[in-house]
């Protein structure tokens, strides 16, 4: 049995420790907000937080998580998360929306570390998150907007 803490809830999963965290979350914990895009950490759709840091769950073995706290899009909360969601709403960032869980998790990670990011900071933090709909201009604007909202 693998023990995990996801969104503050302790879970025991009967899965192979080699299973990527992504599939444990989606298929076994039934939290489907975290998305599968590439399976190779090339697109960022599967981004979750491990102890507050963005990680690619498709390249993280569920057996390696240990006592770390996993947070997914369904469970992420707090001041930064609220500011990011408010900015996403205000600017209507989303199109198909499929990558946006990962974009939002990466953006929260960035703003938690760097409350006043420059465009270069945004490039560095967000370049790993692909949006095939091409919403990048609004994502950038929304991160700046959220940053202002955080004061």
């Amino acid at each position, binding site marked *: 049995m693998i023990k995990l803490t996801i969104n503050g809830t302790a879970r025991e999963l009967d*899965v*192979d420790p080699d*299973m*990527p965290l992504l*599939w444990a979350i*989606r*298929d*076994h914990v*039934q*939290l*489907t*907000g*975290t*998305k*599968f*895009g*590439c*399976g*190779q950490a*090339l*697109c960022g*759709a599967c981004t979750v937080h491990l102890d507050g840091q963005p990680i690619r769950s498709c390249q993280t073995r569920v057996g390696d998580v240990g006592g770390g706290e996993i947070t*997914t*899009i*369904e469970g992420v909360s707090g001041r930064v998360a609220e500011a990011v*969601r408010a900015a*996403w*709403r205000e600017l*209507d*960032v*989303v*199109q*198909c*929306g*499929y*990558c*946006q*869980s990962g974009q*939002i998790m990466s953006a929260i990670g960035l703003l938690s570390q760097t409350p006043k990011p420059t465009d270069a900071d*945004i*490039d560095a933090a*967000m*370049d790993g*998150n*692909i*949006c*095939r*709909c*091409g*919403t*990048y*201009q*609004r*994502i*950038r604007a929304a991160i700046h907007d959220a940053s202002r909202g955080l004061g």
Partner: protein
Amino acid sequence: MFAKPLDKAALAATSRRTFLKGAGALGGAFVLATQLPLTGKAFAAKPGDPPAPNAFVRITPDNTVTVLIKHIDMGQGVTTGLPTIVAEELDADWGQMRFAFAPANAEVYNNLFFGPVQGTGGSTSTANSWEQLRKAGAAMRSMLVAAAAETWRVPAAAITVEKGVVRHAASGRSATFGELAAKAATMPVPAEVKLKDPREFKLIGTRLPRLDTPDKITGRGTYALDVRRPGQLTAVVAHPPRFGGRVKGIDAGEAKKVPGVIDVVEIPTGVAVVAKDTWSAIRGREALRVTWDFSAAENRSSEAIMAEYKALAAKPGLKAAARGDVGKALAGAAKVLEAEFEFPYLAHAPMEPLNGVIEPTPGGATIWTGSQFQTIEQAVVGSILGLAPEKVAITSTYAGGSFGRRATPNADYLAEAATIARATGMKAPIHLVWTREDDMKAGRYRPMVYHKVRAGLDARGRLVGWEHVIVGKSILAGTPFEGMLVKDGIDATTVEGVADMPYAVPDFLATVHNTKEGVPVLWWRSVGHTHTGHAVETFMDELAHAAGKDAVAFRLDLLAHHPRHVGVLKLAAEKAGWGEALPKGRGRGIAVHESFSSYVAMVADVTVSGGKLKVDRIVAAVDCGLAINPDVVRAQVEGAVGFALSSVLRNRVTLKDGEVQETNFDGFEPTRMSEMPKVEVHILPSAEPPTGIGEPGVPCLAPAIGNAVFAATGKRLRSLPLDLASLSGT
């Protein structure tokens, strides 16, 4: 997708028979459907539903108004735009508007431009729904007013409606939609309704927040990949590594030992591994040993296929458009320019890989998917499962991007899901999942295309003749759509944008060779315009330069009868500061193109420095008729830039001895944040009926960038992706 909105009457007269024939070939009996007029009849959205007075609008006692969306949302914003149309005629408050995806039912929910088919594509969702939903909203409003008039015993004419409240000013009485809903549903449905004068519009043309945003920023929105049905199993398929390959032998021994793997079955498209979860299915596929028979496969490399195209281009093709005498005009020209353009196969690569769930139900089946052609999917899945199409229900989910990939004439991945469900005995819901590798390698691509163009200028630099040859595989031949869009052997989607080029050239000839190689192709956001727009607009730039004329002025001279092209061209040029001097290493290029009855011009600003290209800014002007929600229109054009940029810079799908070389987002890398230029979108005010905006933002990007590179460096890059290596030393 479709070159033009299909004319309903023409379809009814000529194409239905052909379509039915095609559908019959798929094995499905087809239900004839007609456009449903606004009659006094009550509608049930699907069998068993309580009758409702209107197929598109539901008002409930909780005071919400739900619009049934007959189209699929792939990000293009129909779940906001279509409710806006209803809310406007209904005089609803935006805060009470909701949406739900309509069930599959071509009798009620057909695309009015596609005839008897429910489907999304060709940037037609808004255009075909415009009148239909205005009437639906107006009818519902009239029934609410009638209900209030009867309840309050006052004349209907003395009642007003504003922001979801029905009022009788003289008596001071008022009621919400929710309070009147039950009674309104019993009122007769008006046979005729009066639509608003556009000058009275309060919601249309304003910025209203998207209704799908809350779902998509919380992880709550359900895509097909998120569907979890009781007892559901996951299937992945080992596809032949070359198109047309067949299974020769299977050793499933190791695969069946993988914990969680339940079954391994051979299907016509490969070998399916069925497991209790996705990871087990993927691991099972890795453990599978399959040998393939490539005797009937496409075994050539892209280069060999392109060489065949070039050889074909030297021979006479089929005439797609001809006027005057182009041979004579070119022979008499003072200057003749010639150019060739190569375009690669391109993957759509939507972020959500292709997938769908087929769930057995008593006497039928339910498909859970975000796909574009419900009617075809019902017919295909029904034929595989031995069910009449109407016994196949579809629950539509959000689609995680598509760009045309989820609109297939043979319902390819859902057919695969149905085949696996049947092969495993219809015991459990089957979730067929394509991984990213399947998406890249198992096909359906924008066709590879070759263009060869010659044009002449007279001594005064005027365009005197244009000869254009296009070679590429037909998207539509052999599909149910062949009768609609293939005429005299010419696939309209291969030549759209060239055959109907707007520039005034008296002597003009466009010919085409539609090839038949074994690589499966499909419409890719803006379809033929992805290559025709680039070839025409790049070559126009070359001609302007050769004529010693400004690129905008040269075009304007040839567009006297095309005011909407002129409108966007001038607006984009003005907003971009066309004509300003730029520092060394920077360049500015322009392009204009019509597609899907919308008009777009783009100005690209680029910097070429140290041999590297950076696209700094795109200024776009668009005329898509009346913009229902201008912010969604802007978002679609911004997104089209982000989507198409990587196809300008680097993307290609390459075959080596028949095998696709790109397997994931490393070999086929979409645009990333740091590459995204600043995009400005200017919408031309218009009172024309709304046309599409999902696709028209794509065609101008590549030629505007290529023309800007020429302005910056003097190097003319024609083929796509642009040969950036040739910029070294600039």
